[in-house]
């Protein structure tokens, strides 16, 4: 070293002159500057070197500011450390060789995230400059918050008028590719090389075909809150975002499958047909039902309607009468004598046999025939219908309706063979010879027996047998008193049939209570209305013959804990028997499959075992469903099985997988949540039941259904939980046929060179400040709501009424520690002044008060605008409103505040209160910051790289921020930042390349023996063998240093961080250590850790002075050899910090470091030093404290928790460094 000089402000022109002079005067060939962080001024000094005609890489810096004077408290110790740092730099620099910079190509593609005014301005600047822009906006139109404003301060320009032309420019710009209704899913990579995945949400409207004529919205029956008007008005499910939307196209909002449709086992589009009924489109409604359910007439009369149980309307008053509405449209069409026109496809040559013509079999038959199969249904009874005809009585399901519905099957060509029973294994084998597949839907026709004595006596029958005989016309009269044992639908059906056959008295005897009765509640009610007596907590124990009939012994029961069905178990009460005489007894205590193993198939609990997903049985080609598989179940579940079997058989016969994509068959829980508060109650429509009269007409239908006058009103009660109801009205109305319900979400991949984040802000939600009672009155508004009210004021009735006496409350959600928002939101004083003036102009008689804390009118023309407001009579009161009180009767709003300028207390009534809510970071900013690893300021907005000099840069190279994403600001400042960000991006991309440091790997050819072990070590494949020699491709090499640890001869080295330079630095770092001191070396990667250490210094956070930070490009450069050398030369602890792998430009570096650390930790342990002395962590630039915690913990550990490493151990470690290679090879396996 020839010259040492102490200069203040080394980086200034003056300071640099010293370098130039000294180099010239003393013929220096190396320069070391001890001052601030190289990340700050390395470039400056390297330029100085060039001016002095020296290669810039013959230079180094000792960071004695951020890494020393700014972060240590003891002046003495810090000075000592500074000396070390200077010596380290000198020792390293002495070995530097001249190097040339590397150029990386960079293209002209920019990703702009956010389509508000910031994103728009940046995109236009970039597009005009010849760059490709991908503008991604999450809403259906660009424009952001500015498009929502009425007028802008201080000029009172109409916001939509001035932004309109910009929107049009974006739309037409050849270089701007607009991705609206899209969100950025993920970003990986780095400057010049960003890989972006964009999720495009489905609009269900083809942008190329839509002409925005609006015919669709006119027909749409579904109203939803208008988001652009902040919910103050309504729009249709199919809508255009606003009047100036770009792209000017419609879109449909689908929220999800509503609970009605989700709970329906066959997923009929319930919401859809109810909306059509609401519009009076009964034929279309029926057609919509028939898309899924070919038997609406039957369903509307007997279904157990799980849709009604799931209906959200129940949270308001009562569920919709969905079943009756469905029945209505069927009956209506029948009255009009409208026929269902079906076009069954020609036969495809494959044949399917179905055994059983109940609902499951009929549904399967219909679906399979409509898929082209030739279907034959075998039924053992004389007529088809199964339970529909031989179980359910005609007063519930008239035979005309049944026959009419089933006729459809005949019309489409389904074959029925009645009076034919398929028996046993042979029966099925026979079928499989003539048919390609078989579906068994035989039902459960055997009444279970109780097993009590006397059950076989004449006069005692099972419910199913009784109903079958009655429906066949074989029983026409019953006399006397009848008992029905049981509580299900079969029991009720039997009881009401007995009544109609002439029984004088009918009693239903059930062993539990009414709450546990499984029968339909409507059926139970009708039974009671017809005069049937219900007896609870009684069960028969035996039946005996008596002269006048049957003597039943009945025992009382009481309910204990629940059994396997979940219902409380009835337990007999001893000694409580009574005897009673009945003339007729029907046992309705359950149903089961007719005889065990009827077809020799695998059974489960007495039912045919079938795969719940596919309905396959134990025999290939044979499927089963309905009651035969489920046990006695419901009609709609049987239909669901019929549908499922048809899908399975179709796939089976086409050799397709039967299992994939079928999870949503059958009922599933709906994910949709609907707000029901504030919905006005209205009663459910009810049919007029006239029971005693209808009894007179015996088996005629009891329930007349809903009258036509009632159906529209009932349909209007629907809350449209699913958003768009898929009713199809828009499809029918759209001439260009632009609507496509089947559109799917898709992901597009983009490549970008730079990124601009312009994700804007959200308005503070005032419900977080309950003292202001936001939401409790329609007279308390946010400023943004008032913007919408004023903006829409000229085009129709006001969205809300604004009274005569108006108060503005400033600083709502800003400058408030109590809710954790300390920042001032900057624009509220001015926007309140503007809104006040607009209101005053609309009605000069208004009295307007603005309650402020400080009035911030800092910008151009702001003070003058404020003065104008005062001139117009708007009163400004300096006092922060403490609370709003609301008179519960009159609804009047009373504000209490101190007028701090006169120290008086104001308590005044207002008609309207406007909350000047502050600006908060949008949740999208949060999401994007995580994705891009951007730091956040304490107020939650995105952090700029330097608060003074780099206001639109971030610490991630190539990523810029603009607008309110960075912090609250008005439109001119936003536009300025947007143009600034664009210019910063252009600056990086304009030359077509950017330069990076020539920090790349190189080979000491004389040491290399060509073993080739290094070839596989490079994650980017930059090491190749050419004609026998190992070569490094500098274009690919990233300069991470991973390969260095893979060379047994230490022939691989890294420019500017050579092995010799590193060793010299390490030695120098440890030389000055006193015997009782400890030293912790920190190897900090340039991208992240070194920067974090700088930030700690800038923030003046103190950490232990025993640390010595050594800069490396990547932590992977720290080979096991260097680590062992460091420990043997006196290091007590070593920490390696590396960039988090998701943000790292060095693929594979993290794993490489982990491997190196593992190897050395084992050696340390073996030699008697603690493995914990060597630590490694992945860090993010946004997490300052992580670095600090790691380093402080390590220092504490080596200082206090373990004894010093003895010289013997250090000697052993040194020896291990010599034989390192075998160890390394062994560890790598």
């Amino acid at each position, binding site marked *: 070293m020839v010259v040492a000089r102490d200069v203040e402000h080394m980086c200034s022109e003056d300071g640099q002159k010293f370098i130039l002079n000294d180099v010239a005067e003393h013929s220096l060939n190396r320069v070391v500057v001890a001052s601030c962080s190289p990340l700050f001024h390395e470039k400056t000094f390297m330029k100085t070197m060039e001016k002095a005609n020296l290669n810039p890489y013959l230079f180094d810096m000792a960071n004695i500011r951020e890494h020393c004077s700014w972060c240590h408290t003891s002046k003495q110790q810090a000075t000592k450390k500074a000396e070390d740092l200077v010596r380290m730099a000198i020792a390293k620099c002495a070995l530097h060789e001249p190097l040339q910079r590397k150029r990386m190509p960079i293209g002209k593609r920019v990703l702009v995230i956010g389509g508000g005014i910031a994103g728009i301005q940046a995109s236009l600047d970039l597009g005009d400059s010849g760059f490709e822009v991908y503008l991604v906006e999450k809403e259906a139109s660009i424009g952001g918050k500015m498009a929502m404003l009425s007028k802008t301060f201080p000029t009172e320009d109409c916001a939509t008028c001035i932004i309109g032309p910009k929107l049009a420019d974006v739309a037409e710009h050849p270089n701007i590719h607009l991705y609206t209704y899209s969100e950025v899913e993920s970003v990986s990579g780095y400057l010049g090389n960003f890989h972006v995945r964009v999720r495009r949400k489905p609009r269900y409207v083809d942008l190329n075909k839509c002409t925005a004529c609006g015919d669709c919205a006119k027909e749409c029956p579904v109203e939803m809150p208008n988001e652009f008007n902040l919910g103050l008005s309504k729009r249709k499910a199919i809508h255009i975002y606003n009047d100036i939307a770009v792209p000017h196209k419609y879109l449909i909002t689908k929220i999800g499958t509503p609970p009605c449709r989700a709970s329906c086992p066959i997923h009929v589009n319930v919401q859809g047909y109810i909306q059509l009924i609401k519009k009076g489109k009964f034929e279309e409604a029926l057609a919509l039902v028939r898309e899924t359910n070919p038997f609406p007439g039957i369903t509307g009369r007997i279904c157990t309607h799980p849709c009604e149980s799931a209906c959200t309307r129940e949270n308001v008053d009562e569920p919709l009468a969905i079943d009756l509405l469905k029945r209505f449209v069927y009956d209506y069409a029948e009255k009009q004598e409208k026929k269902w026109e079906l076009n069954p496809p020609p036969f495809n040559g494959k044949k399917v046999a179905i055994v059983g013509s109940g609902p499951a079999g009929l549904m399967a038959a219909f679906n399979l025939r409509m898929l082209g199969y030739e279907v034959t249904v075998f039924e053992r009874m004389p007529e088809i219908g199964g339970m529909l005809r031989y179980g359910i009585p005609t007063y519930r399901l008239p035979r005309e309706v049944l026959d009419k519905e089933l006729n459809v099957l005949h019309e489409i060509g389904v074959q029925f063979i009645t009076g034919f029973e398929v028996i046993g294994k042979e029966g099925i084998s026979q079928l499989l010879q003539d048919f390609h597949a078989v579906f068994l839907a035989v039902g459960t026709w055997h009444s279970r027996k109780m097993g009590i004595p006397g059950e076989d006596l004449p006069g005692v029958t099972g419910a199913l047998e009784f109903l079958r005989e009655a429906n066949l016309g074989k029983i026409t009269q019953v006399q006397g008193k009848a008992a029905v044992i049981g509580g299900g639908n079969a029991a009720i059906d039997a009881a009401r049939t007995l009544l109609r056959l002439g029984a004088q008295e009918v009693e239903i005897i059930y062993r539990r209570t009414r709450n546990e009765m499984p029968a339909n509640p409507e059926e139970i009610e009708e039974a009671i209305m017809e005069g049937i007596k219900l007896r609870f907590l009684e069960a028969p124990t035996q039946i005996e013959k008596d002269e006048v009939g049957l003597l039943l012994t009945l025992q009382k029961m009481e309910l204990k804990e629940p059994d396997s069905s979940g219902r409380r178990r009835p337990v007999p009460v001893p000694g409580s028997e009574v005897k009673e005489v009945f003339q007729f007894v029907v046992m309705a205590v359950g149903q089961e499959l007719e005889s065990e193993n009827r077809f020799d198939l695998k059974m489960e609990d007495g039912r045919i075992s079938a795969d719940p997903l596919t309905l396959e049985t134990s025999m290939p080609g044979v499927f089963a469903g309905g009651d035969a598989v489920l046990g006695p179940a419901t009609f709609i579940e049987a239909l669901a099985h019929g549908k499922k079997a048809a899908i399975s058989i179709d796939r089976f016969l086409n050799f397709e997988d039967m299992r994939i994509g079928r999870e949503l068959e059958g009922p599933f829980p709906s994910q949709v949540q609907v707000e029901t508060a504030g919905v006005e109650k209205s009663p459910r429509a009810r049919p007029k039941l006239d029971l005693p009269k209808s009894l007179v007409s015996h088996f005629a239908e009891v329930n007349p259904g809903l009258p036509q006058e009632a159906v529209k009103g009932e349909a209007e009660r629907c809350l449209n939980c699913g958003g768009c109801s898929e009713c199809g009205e828009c499809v029918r109305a759209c001439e260009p046929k632009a609507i496509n319900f089947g559109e799917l979400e898709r992901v597009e991949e983009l490549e970008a060179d730079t990124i601009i984040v312009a994700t804007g802000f959200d308005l503070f939600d005032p419900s977080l400040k309950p*003292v202001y009672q936001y939401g409790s009155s329609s007279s308390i508004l946010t400023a943004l709501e008032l913007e919408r009210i004023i903006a829409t004021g000229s085009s129709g009735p006001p969205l809300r009424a604004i009274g005569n006496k108006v108060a503005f409350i400033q600083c709502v959600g800003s400058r408030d520690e109590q809710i954790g928002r300390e920042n001032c939101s900057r624009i509220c004083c001015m926007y309140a002044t503007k809104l006040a003036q607009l209101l005053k102009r609309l009605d000069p008689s208004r009295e307007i008060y603005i309650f402020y804390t400080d009035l911030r009118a800092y910008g151009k023309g702001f003070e003058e605008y404020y003065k104008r407001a005062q001139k117009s009579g708007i009163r400004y009161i300096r*006092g*922060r409103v*403490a609370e709003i009180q609301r008179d519960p009767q009159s609804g009047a709003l009373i504000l209490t505040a101190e007028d*701090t300028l006169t120290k008086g207390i104001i308590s005044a009534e207002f008609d309207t209160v406007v909350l000047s809510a502050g600006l908060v970071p949008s949740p999208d900013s949060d999401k994007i910051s995580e994705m891009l690893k951007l730091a956040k300021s304490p107020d939650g907005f995105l952090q700029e790289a330097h608060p003074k000099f780099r206001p639109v840069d971030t610490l991630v190279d190539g990523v810029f921020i603009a607008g309110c994403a960075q912090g609250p600001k008005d439109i001119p400042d936003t536009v300025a930042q947007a143009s600034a960000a664009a210019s910063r991006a252009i600056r990086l991309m304009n030359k077509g390349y950017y330069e990076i440091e020539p920090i790349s790997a190189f080979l000491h050819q004389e040491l290399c023996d060509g073993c080739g072990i290094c070839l596989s070590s490079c994650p980017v494949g930059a090491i190749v063998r050419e004609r026998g020699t190992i070569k490094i491709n500098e274009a690919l090499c990233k300069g991470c240093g991973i390969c260095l640890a893979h060379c047994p001869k230490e022939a691989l080295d890294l420019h500017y961080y050579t092995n010799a330079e590193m060793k010299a630095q390490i030695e120098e770092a440890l030389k000055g250590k006193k015997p009782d001191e400890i030293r912790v070396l920190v190897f900090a990667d340039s991208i992240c850790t070194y920067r974090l250490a700088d930030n700690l210094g800038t923030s003046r956070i103190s950490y232990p002075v025993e640390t010595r930070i050594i800069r490396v490009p990547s932590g992977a450069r720290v080979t096991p050899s260097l680590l062992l050398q460091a420990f043997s030369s006196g290091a007590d602890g070593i920490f390696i910090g590396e960039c988090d792998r998701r943000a790292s430009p060095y693929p594979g570096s993290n794993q490489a470091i982990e491997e190196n650390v593992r190897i050395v930790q084992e050696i340390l342990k073996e030699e008697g030093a603690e493995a914990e002395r060597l630590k490694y962590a992945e860090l993010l630039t946004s997490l300052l404290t992580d670095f600090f915690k790691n380093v402080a913990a390590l220092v504490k550990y080596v200082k206090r928790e373990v004894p010093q490493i003895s010289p013997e151990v250090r000697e052993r470690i040194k020896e291990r460094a010599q034989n390192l290679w075998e160890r390394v090879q062994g560890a790598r396996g």
Partner: protein
Amino acid sequence: MNERFLRIKRIVLGPRNREFSKKVEELSGETVNLCEQCGTCSGSCPMVGEMDITPSFMMRMVQLGEEEVLESKTFWICASCYTCSVRCPRGIDPAKVAEALRQIKLRAALDFLDISKITEEEAKTLPQIALVAALRKFTG
């Protein structure tokens, strides 16, 4: 004459005033200088109607070091309900400052409080908060 129109105050910003502010800050643990005079405390105070100066005025006088604030009845009317403290946007605790002023007043006169010596008349007219403040400091 209207009570508002008394003499114009001459405010001195000298070392003695700063001493008083400091004393109150030490006793209360609050950095009174942070008060930005927004008036939230006054607007929230349920007892403000009975006071002679508003809570924010009390804070202002402490800020400017005006010892005359000790003559005010305001901090004796204070019910210590803490509404001001939970709403203060600067995170200051005016209730604690009021307590500090009470303590300063009490310490000037009282060495020890013997409850048995308080007459019924006194107990009726004493502000309740005075008893609380005195008991807090002087018993045990």
